Structures are given as structure tokens and as C-alpha cells.
């Protein structure tokens, strides 16, 4: 692949193509589809975190003969949800490993009757010792995975950390903790299963139709030609609809196969919150050798994540987490040890950022701790250590993309008014009886696309078809869930072929019609798959003998003419992912180019802390990033603002409260995400440095905004209060514990509290 000219970029930007359908309520999600006769499906779940199922009792007052009832014996193939390791059963057989583990499935035409029936099933579990705290070594009787409950152990090594630490004039240590986070996609999980002849059709809310297809093929023991998976418009995913939909798809499928009827399952919010995946909780320890001038001499980092009761995606979440753990800094001696622990918690899974937000939080908070120790401005400490071109990351990946990361930081500081605000805060804090203000920063990076050789292994394929009427159809398995895939792919194809937007159709993500272009995850869709759209457009051009100069009617005519000469045939340009030149990764040593490219961020948060209530309010937020060429300013800005908002929630508000392995606050009343009134305007800016191998020069950007805000905010709280917060969410209760300052009041000077 050679760098190519950037032609016909659509700018001024295209409005979101399906936006008006969404605003008017015309867009139909899985629960909106008009269905003829169908059954509602429901799941009966484990009441206990671990134990043997001793009895399943169907209570009185329900006519059970009217229900379709499925248990593990109804599974035609192996009882596994195929993913990385096939350890998770579709339905528990004999024993359970976590609260809310699916045990039985029920279906009935009436939803109310179904709900009453679910409540009437009593599952008895003889409890066994559970592992519920991933931070502690497991008790011998709670070991359930290998000899130590370690689901995955990974490490990265560069230079000689022990020697460098021993020689370092200053060593700074710190321990940082992050909690589970619920996705709160506004559309809950939902799926419809139906037999169409001998083809079992699954329609539902999902990010990865081909993951669902594989899971169905394995557990149902069914040929792929007898399976079809169709994504319906998806009301948010954030990773929560990456692997989980395989579970609800299998459940719906089993009920449909057994009843012979169409079955729909839509989780209500409490079930969705209690029983589906969350962001992995993490504990990160840092031991850092620093020179007196602030240069990082050695980084020794240990990462522990809570994987929950099955492997799911924990190994790859851990992998991305440790690869990002040392931050965007140059350091010759780095050791990173990562472990994902088995516990009897509901399995943790993919969530925007995929492990990197946890480790970036720790590292960026730790940078401020180092700055405090040295008496250095946190910005200056970062300036001295940010990667320069030619320097290498922890895995030895040499960065040479031409982006000036110090200038990026300085521009962010300037946009935020960093210097002036620091001075203003100092005088405010000296005078105010009731509030403290502070400003904090974070600099960070996020690898775009799959890790290491992941993209090569995926070998994504994508088609652009020429239609008989002169339009083209993009056939990909990558889906729209709010991030703008439909709009971006349409604009990319139109630009590449010199067509109007109205000449481009995006095919429904239907596994019977679209090739496997990989999952819609990992900030890969616009950059990696978008580039495949361009290459498939080029292939289509070649198939109809058009050179690169042909546009508009010439192209449309060529497509029409081809079809006139080949009636009934399919005209397809195909692109297949190729390993970028000069990229190499060794999975056995964790050395090499972990990602084809990185996005870079420099974020600045300003906060005000109320001394009466310990409440922290973010009062200003500047998010500056370099993400290659920005394809659509409005969509890109929206991704950043939404990611920052989600990260502000994670930093300050969102806390899963656990009770015996179950989420005790599985309602939106008690698990709080930010409202419009809790957030400041989020000021977004981009530095553009086109990435030659991304679509029109784009890099991935969707996950980057999750990485920086939590540390920037806690750094601001530290600046405001002198406290040293290391755990998120930093609730007022937590801040009270670590910053028990008196309410400094002189009645003569106190600010009145207007009410």
C-alpha cells in the first residue's frame, strides 16, 4: 500500500445520515420491530455466587404447560459461549460460578405472565467458598482456575528495571484503584430469534455480528449456512455489545428452536445492569525511579484486574491495559506485570478503552505525585518525558509519526488558560471559606486497531458492490451504534469514487450478505475498515476498467453498463486487510509494534470542590488530541465529548456497589451517570497529522477520550485541596476520608451561601 493523494474530502461536513430518523423516532430498534406472533423470552438466574445447583422448583400458581422451558440439556452442541476460551456455559449445568448466571430460560406470549413465572422458579444452590476480592490472594478453598485463580499473566520488559531503580536518586511509589463501570447504553440488550425455513435468523442489538454467528455455530452445532445474524440499529454499545450479545442470542435461539416460534428477549434495565458485563476493576502499583531533573529512569508497574467468573475478553483487556500502562513517555527501563484474576463476580468485559483507561489513570495520577515530590510543575514534568520521535514505548515500538507531543500539551495548556488559572485559583483558595479550585492535566495515548498481530489474524474482508442502477453498496460487518459508521463509510465511498452521497448505500450488517470485516471495536472502524472501503472502491473501479480520474456519471454509467453485459451477476470490488509495511510484533515476548499507530491526547480539567460537602464539580474541560485527519468534525467532536462525559462519570460518580458478588445498585436511580446539569461544556480541539494508512488519513479516536479525564480531574482535585486521591470514583465520601480538612471560616470574611 502506498500513500495516496487525499481526494475530495467531504467538507463542510455531512450531517449524520440516519440522524433525522433518530430525532423523529422513526428509527426502529430491536424492540420496535413490528412482529407477528411471537413469544417473549426470559432468563432465570443463579441467586448465589458459587455452588452446586441442588434443586430447581417450579412454584405453584403457574400453568407451566403453557411455557417453553429450556435448560442446559436442550443445547444441541457443546455448552459453551465460544470466545477466547470456551469456558463459559450457555446455561449453568450443575453448578454456578456467579450471581445472575443463567440457569433456565422461559418463553410465553404474555410478558406479564412470564415475569410472574420467572419469580415463581426457585433455584437452590448449596454454597461453596467464593472468591470475591480480586486484590487479595485467593483462599485455597476458593481456587477455581488453575492453581492460583490467575486467568491470564502477561509481562513487558525493557532494559534492566532493578538496576535502574537501585541507581535512581529518587523512587516514587503509588497504588491506584479503579472501580467497575456499567456501560448504560440507553437501549438495553435485545434479540429476536426466528426460523426461516431451516435458517435460524437472529436480529438484535450488537457490535459484532460475526462473533454472534460463531457462538451460534459452536453451541447449536449448526452449519453457518443455516444461520443468519442481522444487526438492528443499536442504541449504544461502548463495548457492552461486543461479546455479550452472543449470550442473549444463544438464549433466544434455544427458546425459538424448542418452541418452534419467534422469540424476543429484551432485558429490562435492572437485569441489564445486574447481569451483563462491566469495565474491569483494576489495581495498579507504580514504583518509579526519577532523576532530580524529573527524567523517568525506571518504571516498575504491576497491574491486577478483576476478570470475573469466566475468561471472556479479559486476556486482551489486560494486554491493552499493560501496553498503555507506562504512558506516552520515554523511559529506558520498564517492567510491567499484568494479571487478570478469576473471581466469582459477574464476568467483566469490553468497555471503551479496553483496559487502557485503568492504567492511564494510574500512570497520570502517579506523574502528578512525582511532580509533587520534585516540586515541579506537572506540565513541566510531562514536557521532559513525553516521547520524542525516534524514542520508543515500553514494548520497544519506535515512534516516528511527526507529531510533536510537547507542542500538543502546550497548546492544550494555552487553550485552558493553565497559567492564569493556577494563579487565580491560588488567590481564590486563600480567600474562600467554602470552595477550593484547581486545574489538572493528563497526557496519554491510545493504540488504534487490534493489538499486535490482531488485525492480521482478523484478515478483514470488505466489499463495495456496483449496483445495476449505478449506485454502489458498501458491504461490511461494521455497524452503526452512534459513532457515525454509516455517515463516514458513505462519505468515504462517495469521495473515493467521485460520487454523490446519495449514490452510496450501506448494506445492513447481515452475515448472509456482508463479508466479515471484523468487529466494531478497538477504534478500528473508521481507520482500518474505512481504509478497506477505499481499497474496495479502487478494486471496483478496476473491475469496470475505470482509472482514478473517472467520477460521477462516468462511474455510474460504467456500473450500469457492466450490469447490462452481465445480467444477474454480482459486481463486487473486494479489499482484504494487509499488514502495514514495517510493522512487527512478537506475541511471545510482547516486544515490537503493539499498534500500527497511536492517537495522542492532552486534556486539562478544572474543578471546584465544595468544602462543606466534599463534592467535586468539573467547571471546565479542554480535550485536545491528535487523531490523524478528522473525517467529520461534528461526529468526531461528539465522540470526544461523549467519551469525556463517560469518563467524568467514571471518575466522580459511577460506582457499582457489590453485595455477595451481586450489584446492589442495579438501577439508574442508584447507579448515577452524569446529567446535562452535571457537566461543563467540553471544549474539543484537534491537531491534524494525517496517518497515511488510515482512511483519508484518519486514526481511531473513539476510545481515546476515555483515557485522560479521570486522572486530569483527580489531579485537579489534588491541586485544589492538597489531598492525594488515588481511587475512583472519587465520591464525596472518599474525599472526606482522605482530606479531612477543617472548614476554615472567619465569619467576617465568609462567602455567603446564596440560597
Amino acid at each position: 500500500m502506498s500513500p495516496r493523494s487525499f481526494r475530495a474530502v467531504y467538507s463542510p461536513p455531512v450531517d449524520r445520515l440516519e440522524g433525522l430518523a433518530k430525532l423523529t423516532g422513526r428509527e426502529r430498534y430491536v424492540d420496535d420491530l413490528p412482529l407477528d406472533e411471537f413469544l417473549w423470552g426470559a432468563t432465570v438466574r443463579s441467586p448465589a455466587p458459587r455452588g452446586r445447583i441442588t434443586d430447581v422448583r417450579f412454584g405453584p400458581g403457574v400453568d407451566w404447560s403453557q411455557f417453553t422451558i429450556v435448560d442446559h440439556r436442550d443445547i444441541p452442541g457443546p455448552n459453551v459461549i465460544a470466545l477466547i476460551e470456551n469456558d463459559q456455559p450457555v446455561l449453568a449445568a450443575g453448578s454456578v460460578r456467579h450471581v445472575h448466571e443463567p440457569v433456565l430460560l422461559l418463553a410465553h406470549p404474555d410478558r406479564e405472565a412470564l415475569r410472574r413465572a420467572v419469580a415463581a422458579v426457585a433455584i437452590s444452590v448449596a454454597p461453596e467458598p467464593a472468591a470475591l476480592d480480586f486484590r487479595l490472594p485467593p483462599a485455597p478453598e476458593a481456587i477455581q482456575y488453575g492453581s492460583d485463580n490467575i486467568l491470564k499473566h502477561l509481562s513487558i520488559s525493557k532494559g534492566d528495571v532493578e538496576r535502574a531503580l537501585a541507581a535512581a536518586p529518587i523512587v516514587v511509589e503509588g497504588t491506584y484503584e479503579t472501580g467497575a463501570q456499567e456501560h448504560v447504553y440507553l437501549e438495553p440488550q435485545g434479540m429476536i430469534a426466528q426460523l426461516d425455513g431451516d435458517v435460524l435468523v437472529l436480529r438484535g442489538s450488537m457490535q459484532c455480528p460475526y462473533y454472534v454467528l460463531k457462538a451460534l455455530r459452536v453451541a447449536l452445532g449448526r452449519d453457518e449456512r443455516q444461520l443468519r445474524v442481522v444487526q438492528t440499529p443499536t442504541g449504544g454499545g461502548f463495548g457492552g455489545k461486543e461479546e455479550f450479545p452472543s449470550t442473549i442470542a444463544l438464549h433466544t435461539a434455544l427458546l425459538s428452536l424448542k418452541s418452534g416460534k419467534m422469540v424476543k428477549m429484551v432485558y429490562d434495565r435492572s437485569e441489564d445492569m445486574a447481569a451483563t458485563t462491566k469495565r474491569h476493576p483494576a489495581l495498579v502499583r507504580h514504583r518509579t525511579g526519577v532523576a532530580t531533573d524529573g527524567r523517568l529512569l525506571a518504571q516498575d508497574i504491576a497491574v491486577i484486574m478483576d476478570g470475573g467468573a469466566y475468561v471472556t475478553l479479559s486476556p486482551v483487556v489486560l494486554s491493552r491495559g499493560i501496553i498503555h500502562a507506562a504512558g506516552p513517555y520515554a523511559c529506558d527501563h520498564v517492567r510491567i506485570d499484568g494479571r487478570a484474576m478469576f473471581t466469582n463476580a459477574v464476568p467483566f468485559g469490553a468497555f471503551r478503552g479496553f483496559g487502557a483507561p485503568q492504567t492511564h489513570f494510574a500512570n497520570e495520577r502517579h506523574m502528578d505525585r512525582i511532580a509533587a515530590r520534585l516540586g515541579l510543575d506537572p506540565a513541566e514534568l510531562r514536557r521532559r518525558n513525553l516521547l520524542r520521535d525516534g524514542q520508543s514505548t515500553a514494548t520497544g515500538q519506535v515512534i516516528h509519526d511527526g507529531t510533536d507531543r510537547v507542542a500538543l500539551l502546550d497548546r492544550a495548556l494555552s487553550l485552558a488558560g493553565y497559567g492564569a488559572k493556577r494563579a487565580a485559583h491560588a488567590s481564590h483558595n486563600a480567600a474562600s471559606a467554602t470552595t477550593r479550585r484547581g486545574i489538572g492535566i493528563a497526557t496519554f495515548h491510545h493504540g488504534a486497531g487490534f493489538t499486535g498481530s490482531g488485525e492480521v489474524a482478523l484478515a478483514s474482508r470488505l466489499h463495495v458492490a456496483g449496483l445495476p442502477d449505478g449506485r454502489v453498496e458498501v458491504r461490511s460487518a461494521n455497524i452503526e451504534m452512534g459513532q457515525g459508521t454509516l455517515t463516514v463509510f458513505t462519505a468515504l465511498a462517495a469521495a473515493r469514487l467521485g460520487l454523490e452521497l446519495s449514490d452510496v448505500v450501506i448494506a445492513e450488517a447481515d452475515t448472509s450478505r456482508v463479508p466479515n470485516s471484523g468487529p466494531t471495536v478497538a477504534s478500528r472502524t473508521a481507520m482500518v475498515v474505512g481504509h478497506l472501503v477505499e481499497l474496495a472502491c479502487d478494486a471496483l473501479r478496476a473491475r469496470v476498467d475505470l482509472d482514478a480520474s473517472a467520477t460521477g456519471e462516468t462511474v455510474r454509467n460504467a456500473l450500469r453498463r457492466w450490469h447490462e453485459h452481465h445480467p444477474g451477476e454480482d459486481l463486487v470490488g473486494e479489499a482484504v486487510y494487509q499488514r502495514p509495511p514495517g510493522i512487527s510484533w512478537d506475541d511471545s515476548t510482547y516486544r515490537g509494534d503493539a499498534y500500527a499507530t497511536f492517537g495522542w491526547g492532552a486534556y486539562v480539567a478544572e474543578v471546584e470542590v465544595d468544602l462543606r460537602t466534599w463534592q467535586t464539580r468539573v467547571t471546565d474541560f479542554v480535550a485536545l488530541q491528535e487523531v490523524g485527519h478528522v473525517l467529520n468534525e461534528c461526529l468526531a467532536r461528539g465522540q470526544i465529548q461523549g467519551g469525556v462525559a463517560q469518563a467524568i462519570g467514571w471518575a466522580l460518580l459511577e460506582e457499582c456497589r457489590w453485595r455477595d458478588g451481586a450489584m446492589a445498585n442495579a438501577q439508574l436511580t442508584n447507579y448515577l451517570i452524569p446529567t446535562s446539569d452535571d457537566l461543563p461544556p467540553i471544549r474539543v480541539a484537534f491537531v491534524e497529522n494525517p496517518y497515511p494508512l488510515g482512511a483519508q488519513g484518519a486514526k481511531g479516536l473513539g476510545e481515546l477520550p476515555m483515557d485522560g479525564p479521570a486522572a486530569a480531574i483527580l489531579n485537579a482535585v489534588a491541586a485544589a485541596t492538597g489531598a492525594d486521591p488515588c481511587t475512583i470514583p472519587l465520591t464525596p465520601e472518599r474525599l472526606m476520608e482522605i482530606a479531612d480538612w477543617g472548614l476554615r471560616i472567619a465569619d467576617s470574611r465568609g462567602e455567603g451561601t446564596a440560597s
Partner: protein
Amino acid sequence: MSGQSTIHNPQSAISITFTLNGSTISVEVDPAERLLDTLRYRLGLTGTKEGCGEGECGACTVYLDGLPVNSCLVPIYQVRGCQVETVESLDPAMLQPLLASGATQCGACTPGVAMTACWIREHRELLATHSIRELLAGNLCRCTGYDGIVDGIQTSLEVGA
């Protein structure tokens, strides 16, 4: 029957008459239904979404006698004789500023957001005492960070001034 109270017996449907998007309709419903259920599953008006069923997210916002309410918290029997308006009644032209500002991403909260946004636009006098962000706080959005929504409402106020 006029002037008499009604005692409705268990298990039987109840007949409800109300004005929906400007037209009077009568429907036989299960009295345990919520307005949201009747709209979505009985009348096929699926623009109104269910995000939580607990009055937190606002995805099910409709106007009841002119005020935005969570239709998941309205027992269907309480809309007898009321005016109900749903997202299907909105003029798409009024939504253009929200489209241009990036007010919608995944779209699941969006119909509720559009209802609140249009209500604010029609009741700009509220802005003397309330901020847009306060009036919008009953609509949770997980995608946009709200800036795109607030900007769109601001623009629609300027356009419509």
C-alpha cells in the same frame, strides 16, 4: 353512567378515550398498562423508547396536557380525557438544528431529547429562571456529553426568535 363512579373489576380490559397527537382515540387496554406500553405495543408508536422504566432516563418523554412527562410512570387509566403528544407529532423541520449540532448519536435517548428540546423552544420564557441544562436534566444521554444537544437547542431558539 355520568356522575357515577366506576369500579373496574380485575382481569378485564378497560376502555380509554384520549387525544393522541391531535386525534381522539379509544382503546381497550389492560388497566395495568403504562402509557408507554399502550403507545408502543398497542398503538405501534415505537418512537417513544423505554430506557429504564424508573423515571430516570427520559427516553419515554411525551407531552401530557402540554407538559413533558415520563410515560413509563403514567398509568394508562390516568390519561382518560387528556391530550397526549408523542415524538411522532414533532415537525421534522424543527429538528434540523439538533441534527446539525450533533444532538443524536445512538438515538435511543433521542426521541425523548427531541421532545424536551421542542418543549423548551416553545416555552422560552422558562429560560428567565432555568438554564437549558437544568431543563434537559431529565433526559440522560450516554453518547453526546450533552454539548451537541445544548448547542442545538440554543440554535433552535435563535432561529425561532
